[in-house]
């Protein structure tokens, strides 16, 4: 219980009055200062589906002073531009090795850098699940110090498919059993980040609540261990994992740090409302605000924010202002991405290149991706506006990594993945530059680079070792 501290709001408001509270405030400020010498580094994997429109993403020149194309314009602000790094010419070799359905191969390899596991024929073709641990889950095990080792947030990610298209993170060894879902419900995520503790409770009350909850968790985790010993290997592993996760929750509770200002709890939305297309912006904002608060409070250092499922069917018309209706109503993300034209001019097989529909699809897809860039810009600005313990901003000590499962819709390519990095991890990564690795490097190497920049010692391999060459040295500061 040693990390337990009081929130400023709690101190000033509750606990029987301000006179009691003031001495605690001193303690609190002091303890913040005591840990303030070094700020933690934080990383976010930020996912959107169906790739990008390369013509409207890729700058004409590499190095510094590149000009931002339409999709990345939202980053062209004095606050964000210096933190922006673009990476191209990195490929997802593990996805190529999987083959089959491009979205499934891409989604399962995107953060794991491994090919399919449990491959079998389904109505989606011969597809499988992620072949190993994902980069976020691997880093979380190596980056200590926050109560929650990682936070997986989602916006409408568990609705349409609820299968390998819906998961991007995996625990050790990958496979369906170890798929890590994103939490689509801002209220649930809020409770997890702030440990479901009542607002306005006194320090003594909160200590007692935590003790009682921990006591139950302690009691039941023994049940899981005793039971698992009596079961066959599949079920035994399952219950052992359950016991470990209970222990993780218990430890997180004990380490709970209530020292910072909690945001308001988001409004409760029923499950069906969470998944209405029109609610996407509101749910997304709640999740971004929560993640920013979790970083500010140092509740977690590794996070994912997943927008929708791979090849998702979201219809954006209700909130992206455009005159799409003239194209009929085929406005959903995945369909549009198939109709787009790749940078190379490639369309699809022997599809007749007439109709004029295709150019419109590019425009539409650009609008969708620009909207997502605006969301990332909002989130990054929020981190920029939050002072960190070392006197810099939270954004200075963070990197947001924008990932997607294919680079372009028309050919479902795994080359030239359009990586956007926002934030330089406290000066460990170069920022303000566009790097092109000419498809000579796999994304395993990008993730190794990020692990090293996060300060993980000896982080020299990740994913399928066949594709590892080493860190992208030019990206490291």
């Amino acid at each position: 219980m040693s990390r337990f501290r009081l929130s400023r709001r709690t101190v000033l408001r509750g606990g029987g009055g301000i006179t009691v509270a003031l001495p605690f405030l001193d303690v609190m400020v002091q303890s913040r200062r005591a840990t303030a010498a070094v700020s933690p580094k934080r990383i976010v994997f930020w996912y959107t589906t169906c790739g990008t429109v390369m013509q409207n993403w890729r700058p004409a020149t590499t190095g510094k002073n590149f000009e931002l194309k339409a999709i990345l314009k939202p980053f062209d602000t004095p606050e964000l531009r210096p933190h922006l790094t673009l990476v191209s010419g990195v490929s997802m070799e593990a996805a190529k090795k999987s083959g089959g359905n491009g979205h499934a191969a891409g989604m399962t390899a995107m953060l794991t850098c491994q090919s399919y596991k449990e491959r079998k024929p389904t109505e989606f073709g011969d597809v499988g699940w992620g072949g190993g641990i994902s980069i976020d889950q691997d880093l979380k095990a190596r980056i200590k110090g926050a109560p929650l080792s990682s936070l997986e947030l989602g916006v409408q990610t568990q609705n349409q498919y609820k299968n390998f298209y819906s998961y991007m993170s995996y625990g050790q060894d990958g496979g369906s059993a170890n798929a890590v879902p994103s939490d689509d419900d801002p209220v649930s995520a809020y409770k997890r980040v702030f440990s479901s503790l009542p607002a306005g409770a006194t320090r003594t009350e909160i200590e007692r609540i935590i003790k009682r909850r921990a006591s139950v968790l302690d009691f039941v985790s023994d049940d899981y261990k005793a039971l698992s010993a009596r079961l066959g290997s599949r079920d035994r592993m399952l219950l052992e994992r359950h016991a470990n996760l209970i222990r993780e929750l218990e430890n997180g509770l004990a380490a709970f740090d209530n020292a910072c200002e909690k945001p308001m709890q988001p409004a409760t939305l029923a499950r069906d409302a969470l998944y209405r297309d029109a609610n996407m912006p509101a749910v997304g904002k709640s999740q971004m605000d929560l993640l920013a608060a979790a970083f500010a409070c140092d509740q977690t250092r590794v996070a994912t924010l997943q927008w929708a499922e791979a090849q998702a069917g979201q219809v954006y018309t209700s909130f992206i202002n455009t005159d799409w209706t003239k194209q009929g109503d085929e406005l959903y993300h995945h369909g549009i991405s198939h109709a787009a034209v790749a940078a190379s001019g490639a369309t699809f097989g022997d599809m007749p290149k007439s109709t004029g529909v295709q150019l419109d699809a590019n425009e539409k897809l650009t609008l969708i991706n620009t909207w997502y860039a605006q969301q990332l810009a909002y989130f990054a600005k929020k981190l920029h506006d939050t002072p960190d313990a070392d006197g810099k901003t939270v954004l200075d000590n963070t990197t947001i990594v924008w990932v997607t499962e294919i680079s372009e819709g028309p050919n479902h390519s795994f080359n030239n993945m359009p990586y956007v990095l926002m934030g330089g991890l406290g000066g460990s990564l170069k920022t303000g530059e566009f790097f092109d690795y000419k498809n000579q490097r796999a994304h395993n190497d990008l993730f190794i680079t990020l692990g090293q920049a996060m300060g993980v010692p000896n982080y020299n391999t990740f994913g399928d070792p066949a594709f590892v060459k080493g860190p992208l040295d030019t990206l490291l500061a």
Partner: protein
Amino acid sequence: MSSGTKAPGLWPGCADNRRLIMVMTKDRRTYFVFLLGLLGCTGSIAPDSRDGAGNVAGNSNTAGTGGNGTGSGGATASICKTSITPGPSPLRRLTRWEYNNTVADLLGDVTHPADQFVPEAVQLGFDNNADGATLSAVLISQQEDAAGRLASVAVAKLSTLLACDSAARGEEVCATEFIARFGRRALRHTLSAAERDRFEAFYKQERASGTYSETIEQIVRAMLLSPYFLYRPEFGGTAPDAKTARPLSDHELASRLSYLFWGSMPDDVLQDAADAHQLSTPQQIRFQAERLLSHARGQNSIKNFYSQWASLSQLSSTTRDRIYTPQIAALQQQETEAFVDEIIRKGDGRWSTMLTAPLSFQNDTLSAFYGLPGGNKALTQVALDPRRHSGLLTQGSLMTLLAHPGQTSPVLRGKFLLERVLCLPPPPPPNDVDLTVPAPDPNVSPRQQLEQKTQTVSQCKGCHAIINPPGFAFDHFDAMGRWRDAEENKLAIDASGELLGTDVDGPFSDHVDLARLLAESKTSRECVVTEWFRYAYGRDHGDIDTCTVDELHASFEASKGDIRQLLLDLAETEAFRYLSALEVSP
């Protein structure tokens, strides 16, 4: 098993020539190669310049390996009589739906707390597959939060939860009684002395720092997080030796029965039967199964099954015309749920009736939405025009879900029919084809547009020759399930076509005619058995289940496709009553 109609068989060749060759190497599938030849399924994708994302590169055929249920047929009859082969029984976790039902029955809590849990992964079309119960830190946190809230609400009415006068009889006596009684219901078995001792020790430990009521709350919380509450662990009874299948214990079987029919915990009657060892013979099990199915809760699993089968839960997040309100979405879901329950539990139960019955359940709002005469304030059974409406397949819910905003989708409709009525799922389109539906054209019907598009592109035409016709059959239903006499652009609707690649191939004049064909299909009846097997047992059937599946098929044929009968049969198989000898490691 008489199958040979297993899904991947029909299709591989229509998307990819090389798969066709692979299929030819599997002797029992040569039938399909012949079929594909007839259909003119072409596969002409060249392994071209695509950089690895294509369906072609590196895509060795694995269609044969997934061939569960392709048993070798009659040769097994004698084996089936001499040995018990229940197949695997992977540990099942309560689904969110089962959790909600269970806390409603256990605590009277109808707030559906598990709606906020992360969803299960869907495997083989259902969310209750054992392999879909993914575990995550998020879920554990949600379970703990829900248990805390449920326990705190429950002890707020302590006298209801625990009818024991602690002032007169003493707190410890009451707590001991509570542990045994509530534990038996919450953990779904009669607690052993050791289990009770553990909880009693926990009571004493917690009582030292909390009030009586707070301590009971701690016990409720612990039980709601127990593996015996959240999962359905099974160890079975005794068997003569380690190599023989073991019967489930009475309480394990009671749980299997109640979760199969009700999606919830056993009631007192079932638990008492378990305590009295009255769940041992097939007759005793049959008796309880019939009771559960006839009970008001007997509708639960039927509705849940067809909700998942048709993805009804997606209606609420479906974007359509402005008039398609959340209220209409909810009514369409209720309409379909009431329909399936009516046919299965009150009607003749037959699959053929499900596919053809011209009736449904509507209230005034829904009738008005469909442009039909109303007269009912509450959801009521209504007779529909048999020339227009054909059972499950023309339900407004299904027609809405199998469409795009503003326009119907013959492709989605045809695909659904093949996939979930016939268990012949078409392969997905190649990565590099344009999936957009052509923009509406005032001079061309959507059917002609789609035919034009799918016939022009060589990668499309093989499969779409099979997918499109049954989809076109439903063109009289718009993207919200309403009848229309003509297309949106006023051109005439052509709902005729030819069914290909099935056991009931032939021409049909419209959707009603098509439904009549399907109602005769043995492949479709086998599909019903396969789907219910997956739902009931939380896994796919494999070669080890040949005897079980053969029995189920034979009985389903004998009953003329009576789903009610199938459900009762599913509760009687050896797969349902036994644990395989391999389940528990020594």
